């Protein structure tokens, strides 16, 4: 074994109580970091999951027809008379080509065309305003996998089949196999047969969304051969804003990312991140100071031993390494305890924080990466904390150290 390692281990062994206490401190610190990180990562993943579970990352739509005033410097008041034209569903020109282009991009995992508009659903005397979703059943699953959200029937939107949410079905007294009349704003109307009921976990969407085929959507919305939006999923969700801007500039279409559409959520996530970093920083600082103070005391206590070591030929850089190693070892072993503690706390939390049905509110994110990072952080913390004491040990004047009886 290396001389330095052997001495470092013996010194730690010698100061048994101090070693145990500071390891407890490091373990607690690392435990808090792991618990906090796992909690926040889990929470954020679940928030993003919930947000993006029913959303595309980027949505392309025809740009809004903005009435452009003739810029007449003399008659500024003309601006007051400009009005937006009545909203009318318009198609994305050349969408098949655009769709193919999108699908060939390496950062795009899925792209699908949809016809979206509002309509009335009639069943007997009951009626409800709904959001029509004319979708391409082959590719829509890449955006929202409705097949996995079905509670009854199948996801079949071919011909005049429709899939509705459980909430709407309850409201209108519908079941699989029943018929439903959909009426578009310009009185286009058609009768559909319910093939399946879905539950996406959000009551409002379960109440409003009605899925039909792209073709039926085009017919009802009077958008023959056209689509009203293209929905895109990306490999990296956080690149959405960038990609949306790029696509908007390249196509001239209205291009929105989930990040703009959910800016509040994003702000929430970011402030969670920064407060978590702040707490972790403070915990690390406390651990660094703890390690430093324990080792400074140890250097003072071992002054005579250090003096005699210098006398029998121990070099300054060897003493430096001996104390850095002690810091590193404290950090390393402490972090293993911390991993255990943090994992237990996180799993305990998961067990306590449950939905009414007993399932966890969200899964805590205990990853190998988090463990690895914690070990590295603790190791670094140990080295930083032991830097000053190590310098003091190396700089100790042997004559003085030996004289002090």
């Amino acid at each position: 074994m290396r001389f330095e390692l052997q001495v470092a281990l013996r010194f730690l062994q010698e100061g048994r109580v101090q070693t145990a206490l500071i390891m407890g401190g490091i373990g607690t610190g690392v435990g808090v970091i792991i618990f906090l990180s796992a909690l926040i990562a889990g929470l954020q993943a679940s928030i993003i999951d919930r947000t993006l579970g029913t959303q595309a990352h980027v949505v392309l739509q025809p740009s809004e027809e903005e009435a452009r005033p003739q810029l007449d410097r003399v008659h500024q008041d003309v601006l007051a008379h400009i009005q937006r034209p009545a909203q009318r569903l318009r198609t994305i020109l050349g969408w098949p080509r655009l769709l193919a282009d999108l699908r060939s991009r390496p950062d795009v995992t899925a792209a699908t065309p949809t016809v979206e508009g509002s309509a009335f659903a009639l069943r007997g005397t009951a009626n409800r305003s709904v959001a029509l979703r004319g979708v391409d059943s082959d590719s829509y699953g890449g955006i929202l996998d409705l097949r996995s959200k079905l509670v009854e029937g199948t996801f079949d939107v071919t011909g005049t089949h429709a899939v509705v949410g459980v909430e709407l079905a309850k409201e209108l007294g519908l079941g699989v196999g029943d018929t439903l009349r959909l009426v578009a704003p310009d009185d286009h109307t058609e009768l559909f047969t319910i093939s399946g009921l879905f539950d996406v976990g959000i009551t409002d969407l379960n109440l409003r969304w009605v899925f039909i085929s792209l073709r039926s959507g085009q017919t009802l919305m009077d958008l023959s051969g056209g689509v009203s939006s293209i929905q895109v999923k990306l490999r990296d969700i956080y690149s959405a804003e960038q990609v949306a801007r790029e696509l908007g500039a390249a196509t001239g279409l209205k291009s929105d990312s989930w990040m703009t559409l959910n800016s509040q959520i994003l702000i929430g996530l970011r402030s969670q991140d920064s407060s978590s970093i702040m707490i972790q920083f403070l915990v690390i600082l406390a651990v660094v100071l703890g390690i430093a103070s324990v080792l400074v005391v140890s250097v003072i206590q071992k002054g005579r031993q250090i003096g005699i070591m210098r006398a029998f030929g121990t070099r300054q850089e060897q003493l430096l390494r001996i104390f850095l190693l002690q810091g590193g070892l404290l950090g390393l072993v402490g972090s293993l305890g911390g991993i255990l503690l943090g994992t237990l706390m996180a799993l305990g939390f998961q067990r306590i924080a449950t939905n009414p049905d007993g399932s966890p509110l969200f899964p805590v994110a205990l990853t190998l990466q988090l463990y690895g990072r914690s070990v590295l952080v603790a190791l670094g913390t140990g080295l930083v904390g032991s830097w000053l004491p190590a310098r003091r040990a190396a700089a100790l004047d042997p004559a003085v150290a030996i004289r002090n009886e």
Partner: protein
Amino acid sequence: MSESGPVLQLHQVHKSYLGAVSTEVLHGIDLQVERGEFVALMGPSGSGKSTLLNILGLLDRPTSGTVAILGQDCTALDDAGLTRLRGKSLGFVFQFHHLLPAFTAEENVYLPMLADVGHFEPAMGQRARELLGRIGLKGFETRPAAQLSGGQQQRVAIARALVMSPALVLADEPTGNLDQASGNQAFELMREFNRESTTAFLLVTHNPGLAKRCDRTITLVDGSIE
């Protein structure tokens, strides 16, 4: 380093401690120790014996004057150079044994070799056990240093000072803290090693009886050699 010539040469060594008032403790010491010599250093308390020993042990630097170990002038050496020379050519025994309590007797003996080489080699253990056998501590090899008696600890410290076969061993009152029998035993050990090798000894003692059994006695009074 020359193979012949004195082990130690001091020329006009002055030492002052700088404090509120600067006091000179050593006033121009000239001293030479030959190979294999066994020298006693005597003098009243506060006369500067330990100060002198620290300087010629390269643990402290003189304020002026030169120290040469094996013909090598140490004035120009940096800390690393002094440390290397100390480790290879000098051995130390102090009044209070100064063993590392967390290590066993055997480990304490070979620690200087371990520090020199950087990693353990079986030959180190062998050398340490051989020395422990010679100082009558066979069977105590794996005993933690803290569990040895004062006399035993001092003998281990002597073995440690000898493990690198140094040219000079500096012993500052090595028997001062021991009862007469143990002190005698420790002294005899050093005398024996000295006779069997070329290792020179410089021994600080207050005991005139011991000093008589040395080759030569130097007396320090008020920072000057009489």
